């Protein structure tokens, strides 16, 4: 059994050791800020859904450390292929609230320009983004670019054939890709015991991926592990895999009712392992952050929440005929005729 890499205990103790030396107050404050803002964003989106402003929301609550710790270990030039619950990571890349909410409000199938943030649009078909990440990484390698590609996915998605094809492909082609699995213990109602017969990191190693398992609620461990993996990938040592053990605190989505399939005790247990609390304890114990920091951060979060609400409500549906846009590079006569007929038909109601 591989050891789970941890730097920061649930009680906020920083473990000694060589990797701990990379940890300083500034890093911790920055990571804490990212996590706090991500959580506030997530809470706000949840409320907006409950108010009917969003059609659906998938909460990232509890997974902030896994996302923030990992994406902050990358360079801005590295590409990311996310799944659909990676809001904390998306915010770290600078994606705007409106961009992040558009798809869940139902005004668009995606909200941001991937090239601008080097962060691909969300992929809802589980595991489909994994081969994309591998292909993109192979392209980057061909280009001789000093870039790597990271892809996020859930432990449930790892059962899909396409995930496994991607693992094998990356290993065979030595692609500069980092597979980052957020094992949040559940795939909707399916627990990990019903998902795989051996730990995922063991499988990944079997494919020839350089593998680490990390406490996914320990943002420092995630950060150090990801930096380590990214460094190795960049040095041409081939693809890497990180399994971050974390927990989906909320239901799968706002449509889900997790009480049907999991116990309060389990949830309570994981609440005690909250990644934000943990880092806050460290910041306080070491005196790395003062009241001013926390107060200012709270104000920032409140401002963000307001911005989120405003941005969400301002998101309007595009005109109906826009559904004919962007289907093909050049619509051609068939699509143009269909669009024209639709516009004429729709216009007939205006008379």
């Amino acid at each position: 059994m591989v050891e789970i890499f941890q730097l920061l205990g649930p009680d906020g103790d920083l473990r000694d050791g060589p990797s701990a030396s990379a940890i300083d107050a500034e890093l911790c404050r920055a990571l804490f800020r990212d996590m706090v803002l991500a959580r506030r964003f997530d809470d706000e989106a949840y409320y907006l859904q409950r108010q009917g402003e969003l059609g659906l929301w998938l909460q990232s609550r509890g997974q902030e450390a896994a996302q923030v710790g990992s994406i902050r270990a990358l360079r801005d030039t590295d590409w990311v292929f996310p799944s659909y619950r990676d809001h904390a990571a998306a915010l770290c890349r600078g994606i705007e609230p409106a961009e992040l909410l558009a798809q869940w409000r139902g005004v668009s199938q995606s909200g941001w320009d991937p090239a601008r943030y080097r962060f691909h649009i969300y992929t809802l078909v589980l595991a489909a983004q994994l081969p994309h990440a591998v292909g993109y990484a192979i392209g980057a390698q061909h280009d001789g670019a000093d870039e790597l590609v990271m892809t996020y996915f859930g432990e449930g998605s790892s059962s899909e054939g396409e995930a496994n094809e991607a693992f094998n492909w990356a290993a065979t082609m030595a692609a500069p890709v980092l597979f980052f699995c957020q094992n949040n213990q559940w795939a909707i109602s399916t627990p990990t015991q019903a998902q795989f017969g051996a730990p995922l990191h063991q499988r990944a190693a079997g494919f020839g991926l350089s593998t680490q398992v990390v406490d996914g609620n320990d943002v420092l461990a995630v950060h150090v592990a990801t930096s380590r993996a990214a460094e190795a990938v960049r040095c041409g040592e081939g693809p890497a895999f990180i399994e971050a053990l974390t927990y989906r605190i909320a239901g799968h989505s706002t449509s889900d009712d997790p009480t049907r399939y999991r116990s309060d005790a389990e949830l309570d247990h994981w609440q005690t392992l909250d990644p934000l609390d943990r880092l806050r304890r460290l910041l306080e114990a070491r005196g790395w952050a003062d009241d001013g920091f926390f107060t200012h951060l709270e104000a920032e979060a409140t401002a963000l929440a307001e911005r989120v609400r405003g941005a969400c409500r301002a998101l309007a549906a595009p005109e109906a005929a826009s559904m004919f846009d962007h289907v093909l590079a050049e619509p051609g006569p068939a699509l143009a005729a269909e669009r024209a007929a639709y516009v004429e038909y729709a216009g007939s109601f205006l008379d």
Partner: protein
Amino acid sequence: MFTLSEAINRGLRAGLETDPKVMVMGEDVGRLGGVFRVTDGLQKDFGADRVVDTPLAEAGIVGTAIGLAMRGYRPVCEIQFDGFVYPAFNQITSQLAKLRARSRGRVTAPVVIRVPFSGGIGAVEHHSESNEAYFTHTAGLRVVSAATPQDGHWLLRQAIACDDPVIFFEPKCRYWSKGDVTESPDDPLVLPLDAARTVRRGDDVTLLTWGSMVETCLRAATAAQAEGHSLEVVDLRSLSPIDTDTLVASVRRTGRAVVVHEAPTFGGLGGEVAAALGEHCFTSLEAPVMRVGGFNVPYPAAHLEEHYRPDLDRVLDAVDRVLHY
């Protein structure tokens, strides 16, 4: 009165009760009872061995179901949403559909694959697709769609009892709508698995449809009635094979036809229906067979879906066009 979802649930329950070889399998069908609760309570009553929460892998679901079927089981698989059936496409088209023919009748694969399909619930992408035409073009499969609780129940029971693989499409926007379900399989309301049903009689135009659009067409017929036009509505029910006789008889009588489905019209099953009617009703047709369907674009975002999906007005517009051709 049952909702469509309850009627299907009871159909599954009846299958599990009457035949110990029936199994229900899929993602989250057990403890959770499925994301639409269609399998609610079944695992509790029949055990985790017969109502199986599977790993998250659609090819695996269909592939292992085929193996189970070879062993004598009758698996009923659930694909969580229409847009997630594609990873299983290879197992469905190259294996499930062909097994009987490839083995010269020596192997049967009585697998049912339930697919909640089509839109209308404001869902995110990949959750609203009408992909029945991929399967109807695949020889060796039966494809059906239940538009009412009656069919949700009995069509499903027939599908489970059938020795052929059946792709069973459930219009998800109708899950919560209610209707009667007859008690006995001998009731005349229980039609054969491959029969169309004339759900409303009319003389001027025949609307041919299935799934979520049956209700839309019925409403169109009511609206047209008010304007003095008598529309017949035929629910195909069986999408492969098609009950051509019933369709042709209706259109020969009315002389006008509109096919309505949610899938994009281009290459959709409506083309097959129109082509068959064009051939068999050539001398009776007073106007071309018109098709009303989704546009030939990927399913749009939720806020646009009601512009994309055929509605009362678009059906009536087509009716108008065939009436005034």
